[in-house]
């Protein structure tokens, strides 16, 4: 008489749904996320209050003023941070805001930031516009190996904290405080804003040390988002863009601008400005390249999240069917 051995019994639907091999999931993810990079589509997005405030703060910077960009990301978070860096650079360059570039998180960060800026400059050259010039428009301060001490020193005396820092001027390596970027900066209070692009908790160090003296803004990865938004809700930072979603939101704001008086219905149309109650009306950069790296990766994010939700749902359906069968 033939009997079914326990190990050879055919799997039920529930068991099949709960035991999809890892490799199948991996292949589906790799194929869907990669394939989604190729089509050039502009997906709609609804900017969050934190991103709108970041955009409004950046757009309110006076022309010719100086900000500090603390670039604390490397290619490990390129998917999110590179888009954030590039969007920030586009805004600062279009607003003619000078900036000092520094890093505290990783020794690789300065070169990664430099590469991102080079890409933007090449883009400007290709569009027949003037690239941002080192020394005149921005200076590089390099890597500071101690975030806490550096933050304290900058808060107390920016001139002493950065004493001895040199960058390539017209006559060779020169003290950065002789540059047009920093010549009028005596202390941290003279800096219009400090923007931290980060994939770790370097923003906390800044809030603790510099937050009272200079407006801070964050462009963080999705992982750092929940922690960062705590400081946004307590108004310790003026705005934040979180993860790839934040980058796309910022790109969308750069394209559409914001309007406090536009109705919900009109704001639903992607050609109209984004509704931003209680904030000033700000025009976008119409006709410029606004949708860039963020939007390029956005379909991939959609496909990866859809796959993850489907995987969770399928797993739970399988569990439910298995339990019902065994009951």
């Amino acid at each position: 008489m033939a009997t079914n051995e326990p190990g050879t019994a055919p799997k039920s639907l529930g068991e099949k749904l709960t035991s999809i091999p890892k490799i199948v999931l991996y292949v589906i993810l790799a194929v869907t996320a990669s394939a989604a990079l190729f089509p050039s589509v502009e997906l709609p997005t609804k900017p969050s209050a934190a991103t709108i405030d970041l955009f409004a703060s950046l757009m309110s910077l006076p022309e010719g003023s100086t900000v500090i960009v603390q670039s604390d990301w490397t290619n490990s978070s390129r998917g999110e941070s590179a888009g954030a860096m590039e969007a920030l650079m586009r805004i600062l360059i279009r607003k003619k805001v000078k900036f000092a570039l520094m890093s505290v998180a990783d020794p690789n960060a300065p070169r990664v930031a430099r590469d991102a800026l080079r890409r933007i400059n090449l883009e400007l050259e290709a569009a027949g516009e003037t690239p941002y010039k080192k020394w005149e428009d921005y200076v590089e301060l390099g890597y500071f190996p101690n975030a806490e001490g550096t933050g304290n020193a900058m808060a107390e005396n920016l001139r002493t904290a950065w004493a001895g820092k040199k960058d390539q001027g017209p006559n060779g390596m020169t003290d950065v405080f002789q540059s047009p970027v920093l010549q009028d900066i005596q202390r941290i209070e003279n800096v219009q804003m400090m923007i931290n692009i980060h994939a770790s908790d370097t923003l906390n160090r800044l809030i603790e040390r510099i937050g009272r003296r200079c407006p801070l803004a964050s462009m963080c990865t999705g992982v750092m988002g929940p922690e960062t938004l705590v400081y946004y809700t307590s108004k310790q930072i003026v705005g934040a863009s979180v993860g790839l979603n934040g980058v796309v939101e910022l790109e969308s704001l750069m394209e559409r601008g914001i309007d406090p008086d536009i109705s919900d219905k009109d704001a639903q149309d992607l050609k109209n400005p984004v509704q931003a109650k209680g904030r000033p009306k700000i025009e976008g950069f119409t006709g410029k390249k606004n949708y860039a790296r963020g939007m390029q990766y956005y379909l991939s994010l959609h496909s990866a999240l859809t796959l993850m939700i489907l995987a969770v749902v399928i797993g739970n359906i399988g569990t439910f069917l298995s339990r019902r069968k065994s009951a």
Partner: protein
Amino acid sequence: MNLFAQAVPPPPSFWNAPHGSNELWLRIGIAFSLGLGLIVAFLFLPTKARKPIVATATFLAGGFWVLYYLWPTPEARGPRDIPEGFFEGVGFWISDAVPIVAGFANIINAFIIGLGIYSLIRVNIHRIKRGQKDWMFSALLIASLITMVVFGYWDWNMKKNDPTVVENWTFVQLTSDLLFDGMFQVMESAMFSIIAFFILSAAYRAFRIRSIEATILLAAALVVMLSLMGALVHWWDGQVSTMAGWESDHFANNFRLSEMANWISANLRTPGIRAIEFGVGLGALAMGLRLWLSLERGGINR
């Protein structure tokens, strides 16, 4: 004597010398030799004698920062401001000292990076010498380290001395770019992208409805995940608003995906994170006190 005379331009004193001068290099050399001598002397001390020295140095170093946070320091101070009385004098002294002490900390941190590299080289050369298992990976690591340092420094030095090098790519620059941008950066991106696969696999296997708590967690996670898809949020919110007749105070607006995600963020996630951060802060304070007062066991206090 002004110990903190590094202001710009620095007035000449025993503690400084013109940038790039032989005198400065001589002083750096003497200071380095003295420091090295102190370390060697410290190594020959018996353990019992080391403990009070380490405890005193730790207390003084930590004490400065405690003083910095507790003692009132001048706000928005101008270059011509003069302190009045003892309390303001100490406040001004602390304020002047912070960048200098931070400079010490930067140098010590840079030395820690150097120490890490030394340790890495020592361990891996030891493995190569003994021909231990996978010694070829150690050899590759040492070769990569040397190549990256040589070409990185060479490239930096060329650019520093001749800015036109940026426009005229040389063999050195090409090699440096190939190593950093073409290999290291790409490998770093690839390594971290692997996390996505593990997250997907873990979500599929572990995110199951097994209890009320798990169900609530799953529902909240699903709303947050859905809210990260801008196209879906745009469509969903549009549908809800249409149902609500585009009235801004309609009850149905609470079911917009963006509203639900914001509610979860503002009322569940943010307070939760604040509570965790508060706990972590208290723990860090307790740990800091133990380290500052050399009460923590381990290291020299074993």
